[in-house]
């Protein structure tokens, strides 16, 4: 940035510190991957390590033999993520529009209406009672979607972006006879692609990684999202014994690689995230940079 020298040796200590930090961030991932590929005997003997002495796929084989439970978790999480992201995008993008328009007389009231939810919250207990007792929002896929749809943070992020769009765009569309809806969907939304892409990424990551709604509102273990299933599976490996093939399971349970299975389940859970991470990382970085949110 400051000098034009190609190679700057004085930067070396900085580079080393940051490379070490980056490695520390990645090492636990490698530990878990390595754990999932280690045989139970080796784990019992010497514990988890950075590299297995012998690569062993038993844990994955067992996991895929009893895959229906995890497949179900995947199914739920994928539905929740896709439907939730789509709906949330529209709810927040639409809500931000009237707030951003000065010609809307009550835009500052709407603004405050949204802002207030950031300042004050009823907290966990009333929220829980409202969801359970008043809405009966339990054990359904909507319980995992609805509570996160509207989000003040995203509404403000989008509103700030809309404000940068010249009002002449809207006026021109109006003169050409476009309705408000048409102006919004065909002019404002396409013009706001960068910010909408950013919130789409954040919303979908949120839905994918969520388990809070699961522990609060889902009692039926067959309706648990993937993240919660990971916890259920790793905290008790009994799930295998609950599967249909009882005899085969009893056979397997004797020398089942439970430790390795925990690690393998973890890898299977984070797999999709790790696969898309390289492609979306830079958009997240850009997204955070525009994300300086103000009420």
């Amino acid at each position, binding site marked *: *940035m*400051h000098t034009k020298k190609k190679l700057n040796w*004085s*930067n070396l200590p*900085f*580079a080393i*510190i940051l490379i070490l*930090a*980056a*490695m520390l*961030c*990645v090492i*636990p991932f490698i530990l*878990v991957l390595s754990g999932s590929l280690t045989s139970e005997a080796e784990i*019992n003997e010497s*514990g*988890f390590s950075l590299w297995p002495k012998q690569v062993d796929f038993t844990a994955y084989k067992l996991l895929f033999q009893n895959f229906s439970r995890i497949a179900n978790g995947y199914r739920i999480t994928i539905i929740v993520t896709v439907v939730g992201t789509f709906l949330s995008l529209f*709810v*927040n993008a*639409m*809500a931000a529009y*009237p707030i951003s*328009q000065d*010609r*809307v*007389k009550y835009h500052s009231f709407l603004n405050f209406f949204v802002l207030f939810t950031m*300042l*004050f*919250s*009823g*907290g*966990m*207990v*009333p*929220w*829980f*009672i*409202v969801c*359970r*007792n008043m809405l009966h929002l339990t054990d359904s896929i909507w319980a995992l979607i609805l509570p996160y*749809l*509207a989000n003040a943070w995203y509404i403000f992020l989008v509103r700030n972006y809309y404000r940068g769009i010249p009002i002449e765009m809207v006026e021109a569309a109006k003169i050409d006879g476009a*309705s*408000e809806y048409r102006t919004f969907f065909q002019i404002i939304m396409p013009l706001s692609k960068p910010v909408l892409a950013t919130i789409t990424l954040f919303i979908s990551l949120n839905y994918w*990684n969520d*388990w809070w709604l699961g*522990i*609060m509102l889902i009692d039926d273990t067959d309706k648990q999202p993937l*993240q*919660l299933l*990971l*916890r259920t599976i790793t905290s008790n490996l009994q799930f295998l014994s609950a599967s249909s093939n009882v005899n085969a399971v009893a056979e397997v349970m004797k020398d089942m690689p439970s*430790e390795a299975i*925990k*690690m393998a389940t*973890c890898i299977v859970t984070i797999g999709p995230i790790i696969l898309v991470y390289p492609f979306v*990382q830079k958009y997240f970085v850009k997204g*955070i*940079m525009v994300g300086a*949110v103000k009420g």
Partner: protein
Amino acid sequence: MGKRKRPDTRPYCKRERRGFKGFLYEMKKNAPLYSMFIPAAVLLIIFNYLPMFGLVTAFKDFNFSDGIFGSPWMDPWYGNFKYLFSTGAALRATRNTIFLNVLFIFFELVIEVAFAIMFAELRSKKLKSGIQFGIFLPYFISWIVVGLFSYNLFSYEHGSLNNLRALMGMEPYNWYEHPYIWILILVIFRIWKMCGYGMVMYIAALGAIDTSYYEAAEIDGATRWQRIRYVSLPLIAPTIITLLLLNCGKIMNADFGMFYALIGDNGQLYSTTDVLDTFIYRNLRLNGDVGMSSAAGFYQSILSTAILLVMNKIARKYNPEGALF
């Protein structure tokens, strides 16, 4: 000719209408725009505003069949609070919440700013993107997954760290029996997970600095350290202070996921790691004690809003651009 009236140039509202009639007129005129707000309004009312009114539960003798508003009032009205503070657990949770958040805020800030400055000094694009790739990665996984990572590291029998100790000829260490070491572990995990995200803000602030400042510093013969100390740091100070104040505004709210995943129901560690959110969750979901948990929640909500308002006021005084509202 008399005085000419100044033409009204306001684009869409030629006449100002007041009162209820004006309200109806506005609603009719901008109906499509207001209708776009309806879905969000309904959702916010249900999931945010209703629970706010639900805070009265703290003063009620709650039962699920009568619901929030049907349940009888507590007698005396502060009964739940008396009960809440009758044991030391709530105060301990409050103390832990504040203490741990202070540690998180301080260490995150120092490390993120230091890393961002070092990062901005680097010039190789490839090296930079490689480093960012690694540091940002933990942000993308849930705390549940991190919980499994911590199991891999700290498990007494199989944990990687005890494995490493064995390789160095040391006895295995039972991490889960020592509450104090978890303060450190929580801070490390917190930084590990959030630092990639936090750094970006400071990198953005550093990138916005006019390069002519650095050129001037160079002409004056400033060393690298002086350049960082007297140019970079002062110029990103507004960002640092704003983020610091806004984080302090959330000091009463613990990151539930982290504690749930890393500590779970390990009672041995509660003395240093039980925070308000886990305390409320445990009483609500595991003990079914709505009275105690709602009183704790009320106390947390009121305090955290008060603190947030104060911090925002300070932030606005310091830097009007940087306040939350």
